[in-house]
């Protein structure tokens, strides 16, 4: 009951003053298609996707299993290339990028949050958060300051020295969020971020993400099966059989 209440409260709390700026398009997908080869057959996964996502938006991506949600998220994150169409993020046409260009681009532009947190078990929370910063030119002192700020933002400043095995699922996901945020990326991509958490913890994480969107103006795209999680987003996109069916 209390979970439900938290969810309703969070959904209602999206303030009008934080409306996404019109015409500040961060992500633009034009006629995006993705097919995979299965033997000699070409299997379409995404067909003719046309979407624009404004900077500062929080978009939930929903649909049944196999509808292409994760494939679309992977394209947005530069983890895969579309088979056809134009994909522009922050002014860069990433569908034309080579694999190594995409690798560098990811480091500078995207923060990932995964369902199973994907923390490095042999690194402490602060070292996990520091990972993306190792790809920058920041000094050790600057990196430490950024890590401390990110952990503080997710409420885990006192758990910096703890290893993932010493943290709860919710705390691990908070560390993962801190890792995604620490390099101040343009886009946060979340793949079922609450899929492995109980309801109460899931609500806490969703509330945190909502806070990041509203107060830090982070642009978030979140894949989810859970309609209550999607309620935290500003917009919801529905995919079915690789096609966008409604916004």
């Amino acid at each position: 009951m209390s979970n439900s209440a938290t969810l309703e409260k969070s959904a209602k709390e999206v303030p009008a003053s934080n409306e996404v700026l019109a015409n500040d398009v961060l992500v633009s997908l034009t006629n995006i298609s993705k097919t995979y080869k299965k033997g000699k057959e070409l299997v379409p996964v995404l067909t003719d996707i046309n979407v624009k996502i404004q900077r500062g938006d929080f978009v939930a991506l929903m649909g049944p299993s196999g509808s292409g949600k994760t494939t679309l998220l992977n394209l947005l994150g530069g983890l895969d290339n579309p088979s056809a169409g134009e994909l522009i993020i922050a002014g860069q046409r990433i569908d034309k990028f080579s694999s190594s260009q995409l690798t560098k681009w990811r480091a500078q532009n995207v923060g990932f949050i995964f369902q199973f947190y994907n923390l490095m078990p042999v690194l402490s929370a602060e070292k996990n958060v520091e990972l993306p910063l190792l790809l920058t030119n920041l000094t050790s002192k600057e990196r430490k300051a950024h890590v401390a700020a990110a952990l503080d933002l997710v409420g885990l400043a006192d758990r910096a020295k703890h290893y993932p095995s010493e943290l709860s699922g919710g705390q691990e996901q908070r560390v993962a969020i801190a890792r995604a945020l620490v390099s101040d990326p343009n886009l946060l991509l979340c793949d079922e971020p609450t899929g492995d958490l109980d309801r109460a913890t899931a609500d806490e994480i969703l509330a945190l993400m909502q806070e990041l969107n509203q107060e830090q103006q982070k642009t978030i795209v979140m894949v989810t099966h859970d309609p209550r999680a999607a309620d935290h987003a500003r917009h919801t996109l529905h995919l079915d059989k690789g096609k966008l069916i409604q916004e």
Partner: protein
Amino acid sequence: MTFNWLSQIFIISLMNLRNIPQRWGTSSVAIFGVACVVGVFIAVLSMATGFQRTMSNAGSPNTVIIMRAGATSEMSSGLSYEQTQWISSLPGIEKNGEQLLSSAELFVVVDISKKTTNTSANVSLRGVMPAAFAVRDKFNIVEGRNFEPGKNELIVGRSAQKQFNNLAVGSSIKFGQTEWRVVGMFESGGGLAESELWCDAKILQAAYRRGNSFQTIRAKLISPSVLADLKAAVAADPKFNVDVKLETAYLSEQSAPMTKFIMGVGYPLAILMALGAIFGAINTMYTSVSTRTREIATLRALGFGAFPVAFSTLFESLVLAFVGGAIGSVVAYFLFNGYTVSTLNFASFSQVVFDFAVTPALVKQGVIFAAAIGFIGGLFPAIRAARLPVATALRDNG
């Protein structure tokens, strides 16, 4: 950019290495495989090194060996008494007062049983002149006394005494119809002579009906630079009919067939074992990549490059191989270094007693060999790690 790659390699390698305890089973198989290969590799080569060392320790750069022209070894050489006397007219041979430092010697092979197997083995019995001791640099009687000229007395090398029966000082031993008394034991810097038995040349000539003939002359030069003059003098006068060689060069020639034989057995054996170890390392590293699929994919998603991921996998393989190589080297050192064996020297058809020698150069070779196994074993798994499909691997539940 380079710094960036280096820091990426460093952090990923550190994570890989910290992960090893979680994969201790497969990692220890790889380490054990490499340790075995390096251990056997070093053991076999330490045999060749020990043999070479024994042969080379016997030689002095100031000493020449003079044999019949065309003779390839002491066994096939023969010199008349006159030839040995003409040597005194040759230039460059050192003198001790009025006495030339040259020793005419003869050499026969006798049967003695080995302590380890009680099977008979050929042992060199050398008849020498009194100057023989001054010609050899490192000769020293360490037990008993020298033989007396004109008596059936023997002095025996330390290695020979250690390896063969009935050579204790004070004991008697019979070769053919002649009984010999062992009166002393000598060292010669660990060289070939320590595998031999020595006696008075005249007595040996009589015992083996050699008349007044010899097989070689060993002579000490004033300095190595006079060798050319000596050779020229010998070549200028056909009555000599001898070849002059530096003792070191001669012994190097003599050791070559055995060294080649040991290497010929050792290298293929080591390579065959290495193939097994490489498969062990490949299996370990594929397991390593497989158990870290999601970690690798996460790093790649965060922006870590394919090359640092591949290189760090290779680095882990090299570290495991290095640990295996170090263990193999240490075990080989403690098991084999100084281990005494005897083998037939093809050139003299007699036993050479030598110690296995695990030298720093051999350990270095062993570590390089281990690194090669680690490199080959890690290469394909590293390529797999670099080519991991990130999007799919991120959902790996392993």
